[in-house]
């Protein structure tokens, strides 16, 4: 089971996150200050670190920079209440692996953690097979049980993204970021609209559904064994 270190000074927020992590099956510990956090990073063998940017004694990004300069390569996810535009870029530049502005949905946090812990091997293979699905990226086609799904280019990218992360939740924000390359909250249901079209094509013909909606926040591709 993956061990996660949470460095967050606000007790209420930390409590909620710890409960969420525990429920998702992670072993989570918490440090309330940057100094304690750094000590815990140096001591323990954590699989992932979640760092709040505004700590009472230090800036979360400095902490990550220090940790990276010491050669500690544990994946780090940055939380921020500031929600600044450049924060994401700065967070990633400081050595953070992902960035999440507060307030966030718990499912979003869990999806990001899972993505960091099990980074997909973005292989160079141009053909993907997942249960009944065959994707040929060079030909730009996707088949289900040999039948062409007639996907548009963007729909093919969406399906590829899901198929490469079987059994894992991907959120709307992740899809918008990674498939469209936009870093903003569209505030409307754009991603859902695209996903529902994709699902109609992939799961439309009474076959058992492969793409599921997860609590209104994200999607999961379940490849049958």
């Amino acid at each position, binding site marked *: 089971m993956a061990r996660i270190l949470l460095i967050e000074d606000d007790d209420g927020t930390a409590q909620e996150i710890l409960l969420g992590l525990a429920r998702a099956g992670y072993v989570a510990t918490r440090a309330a200050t940057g100094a304690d956090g750094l000590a815990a990073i140096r001591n323990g063998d954590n699989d992932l670190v979640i760092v709040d940017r505004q700590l009472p004694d230090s800036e979360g990004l400095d902490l990550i920079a220090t940790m990276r300069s010491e050669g500690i390569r544990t994946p780090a996810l940055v939380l921020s209440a*500031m*929600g*600044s*535009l*450049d924060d994401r*870029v700065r967070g990633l530049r400081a050595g953070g692996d992902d960035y999440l502005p507060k*307030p966030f949905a718990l499912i979003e946090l869990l999806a990001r953690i899972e993505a960091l812990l099990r980074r997909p091997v973005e292989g160079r293979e141009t053909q993907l097979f997942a249960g009944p699905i065959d994707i040929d990226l060079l030909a730009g086609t996707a088949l289900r049980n040999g039948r062409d799904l007639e996907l548009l280019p*963007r729909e093919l990218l969406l399906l590829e993204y899901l198929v490469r992360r079987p059994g894992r939740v991907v959120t709307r924000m992740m899809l918008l970021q990674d498939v*469209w390359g*936009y*870093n*903003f*909250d*569209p*505030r*409307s*249901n*754009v991603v859902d*609209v*695209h996903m529902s*079209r994709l699902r109609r094509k992939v799961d439309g013909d009474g076959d058992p559904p492969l793409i599921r909606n997860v609590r*209104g926040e994200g999607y999961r591709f379940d490849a049958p064994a």
Partner: protein
Amino acid sequence: MPLRERGARVIGRGTLLHWGIAIALLLAVQSVAMAALFWVSAREGHRGELDEALSHDCTAFAALSPSARRMELHRQLELDVHRDRFLAVANAGGHVLYGNIAVLPPGVAMNGIGTATVTPTTLPGKTSDVARGRLCRLPGGQVLFSGIDLDDSEQALRIVERTLLFALLPGLLIAVLGGWYVARRAGRQLDAVRVLSEQITRGELNRRLPVAEHPDSFGQLCAHINAMLDRIETLVGEVRGIGDDIAHQLRTPLTRLRARVEREMEDAVSRDDFARAGAATLADVDQALAIVAALLRIHEIEHRAKCAGFTRVDLGALVRDVGELYAPVAEDSGRTLAIAVDGAAAVSVSADRDLLGEALSNLIDNAIKFGPIGGIVTLSLAVEDSAATITVADEGAGVAAADRERVFQRFFRARGLQNVPGTGLGLSLVRAIADLHGFTVALADRGSAVSIRVPLDRG
């Protein structure tokens, strides 16, 4: 705080007093210096004249034969009706041969000039006097002493001194009065500014400094302060308005949320009921959070440094991209999204791609929300020589002329649209993004269209 304020006031008054004293002193020093200069130059001028006359005597006597000298000496003494001349001729040993002094005065060097005590022989009741004198050796070895009594000139100088001293008194008086007046005037002006700043500190932002019709430099400063206060008052007014709006805008969803939670806690009997209530609650909280997030985002865009994170953005590609993103949304809502990109040549500008995408997505979202069902939403890019224009148009009624500028204000919702979901912040955000880039955003004069005008820097 009051203590410190009072302290500050005392220091202020003291400083003014110092200024007054300093000005008075300056004027006094100037008077004294002028008097002293006058005195010294008068004295020196007089000395110079005397010394020249004495030297002249030496040359005149040197030109005479020893026998003629006695006659010339007596002639000169006879001409001296004021009896302030001292003349004597002595032999080489310094013994006076003839003249009107008994001995050569000590203290005057040979061929030198100096002030010395002489011993007159012809003045009644006077055996000693102070004179300016010159000693010179004449051809043949004789020595001439030529002197002028200093009594008269000393008296004249004393009169000058006294006059100057008397003149100093009114000068000093004027200096003190002037210093006092200047200090008081400056004090009054500073007091006016101080009183104003105290009033403003208390919150009376509408106070202004009086400015004369033809202001001096202090008056101009006051006018500048007034202009600054005007701007601050406007800004504070805006901020107050926004603060009130935020409170009001958040109160509505929170009130609704509270009522719903209360009712559903009463009504819910099953676990499913609670789950439904929870989901509805989440949606309401998200709506409130969306308002906060949008406000923070506008704030950060407005305060962001221009060009931070700017890259070259291909406008045509961006328009097509965002169009493709929204086409299915329009279709699902029963509208058609048409994309028209003008020209084959790529137009690229320095911009933040995410922000421009966000601005476009807001405009398209609005057009889909407010355009008529079954209508066409047009997203177009028109390229001219100096500018490119991105326009989002729908077939709705558009915004009333009176509201065209106000739609960009935070929380502005046109009448009749209060119940359309949204934060009322979309266009404020679009404008903030446009401002950051130096683009202009405007509503069309007729119909329902919003345009972002992008100046092109083709070189």
